[in-house]
């Protein structure tokens, strides 16, 4: 089985978010970048397929040269090779088109992406990619088993979960649950040394035009001070929720 894992390079979850150039660009100053958490669960599941079922794992990212440490980290975790499409990931459609090209040329059986990146939260790349290459698609995937060309996946739905039967070629939008938090791997020294020797191929993008453009950013208005209620006087809290906030 050939697996392609799509990796987004995103600010660490603890990052403070700021903007620059008149609030039109994300300020990367002092920000630590990581593998998108939803993708990392998928990458770890891919490692399981590699170790238990002999799959090969390629990781791919659409990004400029500054994303290479993130790809190297994925190689250090155990991916066999990496591909970087050398372009600014301008919108979800553009990214999906670039990935579709890689997916078609590499003839992958299973493509694992995160359900969304934690920076732009577009939530569209895996589904668009599946549509563009006419593969089956399961979103918000929390469990995946593959047997031959048959796959069984569980997806999270509002208020529960749903088990689906599907087949390869398959794209999933993965998230926590594919593996547990404790199963995530930190690269060891041997992995890091080996990653240096693994192939990282850089490809040029095609001429797809983005369909959307982030033209400006803003931060939420600062919050007013919290109103403290004494634990001895919870009637006041009920009164505030009823008469002031009008939520009960």
């Amino acid at each position, binding site marked *: 089985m050939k697996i392609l894992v799509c990796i987004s390079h995103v600010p660490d979850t603890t990052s403070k978010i700021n903007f620059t150039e008149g609030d039109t660009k994300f300020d990367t100053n002092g920000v630590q970048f990581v593998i998108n958490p939803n993708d990392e669960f998928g990458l770890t599941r891919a490692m399981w397929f590699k170790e238990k079922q002999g799959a090969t794992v390629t990781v791919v990212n659409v990004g400029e040269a500054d994303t290479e440490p993130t790809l190297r980290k994925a190689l250090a975790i155990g991916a066999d090779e990496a591909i970087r499409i050398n372009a600014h990931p301008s919108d979800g459609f553009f990214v999906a088109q670039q990935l579709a090209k890689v997916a078609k040329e590499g003839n992958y059986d299973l493509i694992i992406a995160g359900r969304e990146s934690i920076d732009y939260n577009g*939530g569209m790349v895996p589904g668009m990619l599946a549509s563009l290459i006419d593969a089956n698609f399961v979103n918000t995937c929390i469990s995946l088993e593959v047997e031959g060309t048959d796959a069984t996946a569980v997806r999270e739905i509002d208020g529960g979960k749903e088990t689906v039967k599907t087949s390869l070629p398959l794209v999933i939008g993965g998230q926590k649950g594919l593996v547990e938090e404790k199963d995530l791997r930190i690269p060891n020294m041997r992995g890091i040394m080996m990653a240096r020797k693994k192939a990282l191929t850089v490809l040029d993008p095609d001429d797809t035009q983005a369909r959307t453009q982030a033209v400006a950013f803003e931060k939420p208005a600062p919050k007013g001070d919290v109103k403290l209620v004494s*634990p001895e006087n919870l009637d006041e809290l009920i009164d505030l929720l009823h008469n002031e906030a009008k939520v009960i």
Partner: protein
Amino acid sequence: MSVLIYTESENGKFKKTAFELASYGKEIANMMGTTLTAVAVNAENAEELANYGVDKTLMVTSDELKNFNAKAYAHTISSAAEQEGSKVVIISSSANAKYLAPELAINLKAGYASNVVALPESTEPFKVKRTAFTNKAFNLTEINTEVKLLGLSKNSFGLKETSGAGAVASFDAAIPDNANGVEVASVDKVTGAVTIADAEVVVSGGRGLKGPENWGMVEELAEVLGAATACSKPVSDLGWRPHSEHVGQTGKPVASNLYIAIGISGAIQHLAGINASKTKVVINNDPEAPFFKAADYGVVGDAFEVVPQLIEKLKAFKSNNA
């Protein structure tokens, strides 16, 4: 030319988000000088939509669409959009809507903006505000395509009653062959309990509750308030509560009217995930907990004393206001 909304239902009954989409879609239709059409699958009582401005509802009735199928549903919506010549198509932010959205965008050659929280700033060029960085920021997105697809965040616009023409027509779209590639084998859904996605009120517990055996009072408080229960990431990682209850940046987002956090310190990732909630209450014995900076109301106190009292007082309040 009409604006098209996909109005979701459950067991035939329209969800609240259907009426919110109608309220929102009607305003866009007014901005663009056109009418509002809804497409609904296996739903009843189309006339309810007219109270929120829907001029025409396309009712799809099909056994084949009994189970949700992203490709089949996306194809039904795109066929409706093509028939109506719609340039703006609006869906919700439910799990199913987010599942079908990318396919729908490809079908319609549409630019797609998800997590939209306001009316378009302008319709030519088409610019709309959405959340980004998991609610830590907003982002104004311009959509360049002829057809625009918007995913409206729950509870971001609210309900606005206004009358629409309320015509009803049946509609039928062939199901594409490749829709059979994913088949539902079983659905495991909590019945009766309020889901985090649909809840008006969410009661959430953190590590301050010390162990899963102490969740009885969280559940009881939720029951009194008709709320869904949720938890912080450490609690789900420790296995005290199921993953499906984890709210935050890597868990579920919460956009309820009222969010009550008990024994949750308020890590930046947690606050990001619940930021879209309207009113936030924190109960914590540590006055330095970061959650107090993000909350509207706070109680500094021992949850094991405060919560049982709050339950009793709310019960009294409910019976006086019944």
